[in-house]
């Protein structure tokens, strides 16, 4: 069985996000970029399935410019067997990403697609669901545990009521949540090995995907700045100050 894992290049989770002064986007100048943390968890799970002898090959896929090869190489260093970069200079919206994956699935015929539950940059959480619909296969979203049993998989999902255990037929799309696992550190010699692993570059034309945007982003605004506080002397002053601000 082949497992396909999606990898998105995002602003690192430690970076303090800053909106550009003109509101056109987020400042990425000199900013550290990383693999979307949920995608790292997805890849870790795929690698564990392979190491348990239940899969033969793990393929990491990303759509983006050449810079996303850096994140694909990280995936290869973690242990993926090969990588596919779908070349595009535009930021793709979830439906387009799902269409890209659908076409890659047609070429690769995987038994399982594991994706992060969402990307930490746009927080959409849509690609896995859309892909399952396009592919017409089962989906298990927000998974925190996964067990492959031949033609099916037992998935535990984190839902509001607690943990929901479901059984799905494979092939399927699984989106993983934070508690699924803790991704491994990359071993230094594996970085060297990753340089020699195959990385295939495909264009949207190669795949026959037409990119369409369903959403127009008008602008970004930073969250409002917290106003300077004052220290009140006593409760009487507190009440007065609240009244002055129309809060009481």
């Amino acid at each position, binding site marked *: 069985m082949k497992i396909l894992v999606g990898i998105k290049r995002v602003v690192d989770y430690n970076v303090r996000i800053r909106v550009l002064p003109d509101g056109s986007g987020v400042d990425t100048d000199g900013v550290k970029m990383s693999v979307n943390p949920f995608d790292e968890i997805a890849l870790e799970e795929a690698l564990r399935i392979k190491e348990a002898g239940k899969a033969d090959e793990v393929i990491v896929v990303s759509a983006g410019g050449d810079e996303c090869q850096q994140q694909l190489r990280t995936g290869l260093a973690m242990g993926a067997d090969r990588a596919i970069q779908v070349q595009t200079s535009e930021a793709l919206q979830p439906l387009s990403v799902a269409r890209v994956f659908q076409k890659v699935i047609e070429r690769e015929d995987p038994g399982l697609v594991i994706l992060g539950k969402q990307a930490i940059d746009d927080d959409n959480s849509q690609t896995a669901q859309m892909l399952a619909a396009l592919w017409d296969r089962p989906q298990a979203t927000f998974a925190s545990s996964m067990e492959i049993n031949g033609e099916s998989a037992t998935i535990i999902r984190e839902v509001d009521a607690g943990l929901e255990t479901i059984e799905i037929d494979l092939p399927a799309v699984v989106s993983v949540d934070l508690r699924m696992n803790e991704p491994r550190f990359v071993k230094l*010699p594996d970085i060297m090995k990753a340089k020699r692993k195959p990385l295939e570059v495909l264009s949207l034309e190669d795949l026959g995907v037409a990119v369409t945007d369903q959403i127009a982003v008008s602008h970004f605004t930073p969250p409002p700045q917290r106003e300077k506080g004052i220290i009140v002397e006593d409760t009487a002053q507190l009440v007065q100050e609240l009244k002055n601000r129309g809060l009481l």
Partner: protein
Amino acid sequence: MTAREIMEYDVIVVGAGPAGLSCAIRLKQAKPELMIAVIEKASEVGAHILSGAVIEPGPLDDLLPGWRDDPPPVCIPVEKDEIWLLSQKGKRRLPTPPQQKNHGNFIVSLGAMCAWLASKAEALEVDIFPGYAAAEIRFTPEGAVGGVIIGDMGIGRDGRQKDTYMQGIEIHAPITILSEGVRGHLSKQLIKKFDLDRDSDPQTYGIGMKELWRVQPGKSKPGLVQHTAGWPLDGNTYGGSFIYHLDKDRIAIGFVCGLDYQDPEFVPFEAFQQMKNHPMVHEMLEGGEILSSGARAIVEGGYQSLPKTEMPGALIIGDSAGTLNVPKIKGTHQAMRCGILAADHVAQTSAVEGFDARLRDSEVVRELYKVRNIRPAFYNGFWRGFIRAAIETVTAGKLPTTLSVHADDSSLQKLAGYTAPDRQWVDRDLPPRDRLASVYFAATEHDEDQPVHLQILEPDICSTRCVEEYNNPCTRFCPAHVYEMVEDGGSRQLQINAANCVHCKTCDIKDPYQIINWVTPEGGSGPNYQNM
């Protein structure tokens, strides 16, 4: 414990700063067949680099002819120099000393420049490994340096192996180049082990703090280089500020002060914040926002403090050795020259022997010799230092005397018998409010569940002698508020907030008892500076 996995290289470079990367690039240009590894503890190249920085381009011209057609991401030609002597509210323009004339120099982000240099090195097939800390030296059976041992990852605070545990590998090489930057923790051990500072004065340091601001349109004048001296420091504390005007409405502002300050109650971070509230500076920053901030120790000992830079199997170069030119306020060109010189030496001789003599006969040390008396002259206060500096400058360092240099950890005065000068500090209103607010902009990150990387060798001293003698200066000199004294059942105990650490090394240097030992945390930990 299983035997560590081993990788072999011809040359290992520890630290992807200007010295190490220049060395790797030059070496690969000269001998493409050499296998070279560069180990870097930051999560990516440049993320732990913090500098002004105005640089002299000479070594770049030497290393990468044609770089001007493909410059580093932040690179603005210097248009104008200004030096100001500040009082609390006033200012007076001082003549620019010749060392500080910056015509032909460039304002860069050294962090961005190192990332750029790393891409040049990788294009030459140098293997660069960011996110891995060279935790220990690997010695050969003969006792020579024979490479490094990468720190283990996935170890809990209590020392247990976590699920993610990964044993660090050994990297073996006949030649190791230590370019760790100021107070490199391996360099420190090797200087001691091989007694490399036997014939030199103690090394001395400063602390530099920096913020990158985006200011209101029109406030930044790209290419303007400003320095200040005077307020908020008293006449006995060496230091001053830099204000470098970048493009895109950005200003890099920073403050440097000598770690030979005497006042046990002094807070360098507060001095920096005070300076920003001087009317001249406040006006520039008002209405702007901080993009990144951080701190790093600066090596100031110069010629007198330069240790021997070679030992069996290894060389120490750049700020780890201490080649920064203090009167010029520049170290990058010196570090790069060291890297190039080390590469030439290794390429020509395939050995380390003879490098120290070669370095001392090079423009690197000639430059340090000329200015050797300027920094120590300021031991006797600002004005005496100023006059001596002028004399030394006019005579180009040809006077026969050489002033000696004292260790920073010995300069702190005890509380009893010390009266702090009136610093005329003011209420301030520009961000950050305090050190914790500042650390936020350093985007520093350490997994909390790992061993504390700031080792206190004799913890009892903190809650006994140090309280009485110095009132725990670590709680003040650390720019990231790592050290706190907390009440614990009537006594005061040291609490170390290691996750805040920005790897500046000030504590390792300034602690009067020399009981703080900075070691490498898990690889990839530490600040994530942006364009610093």
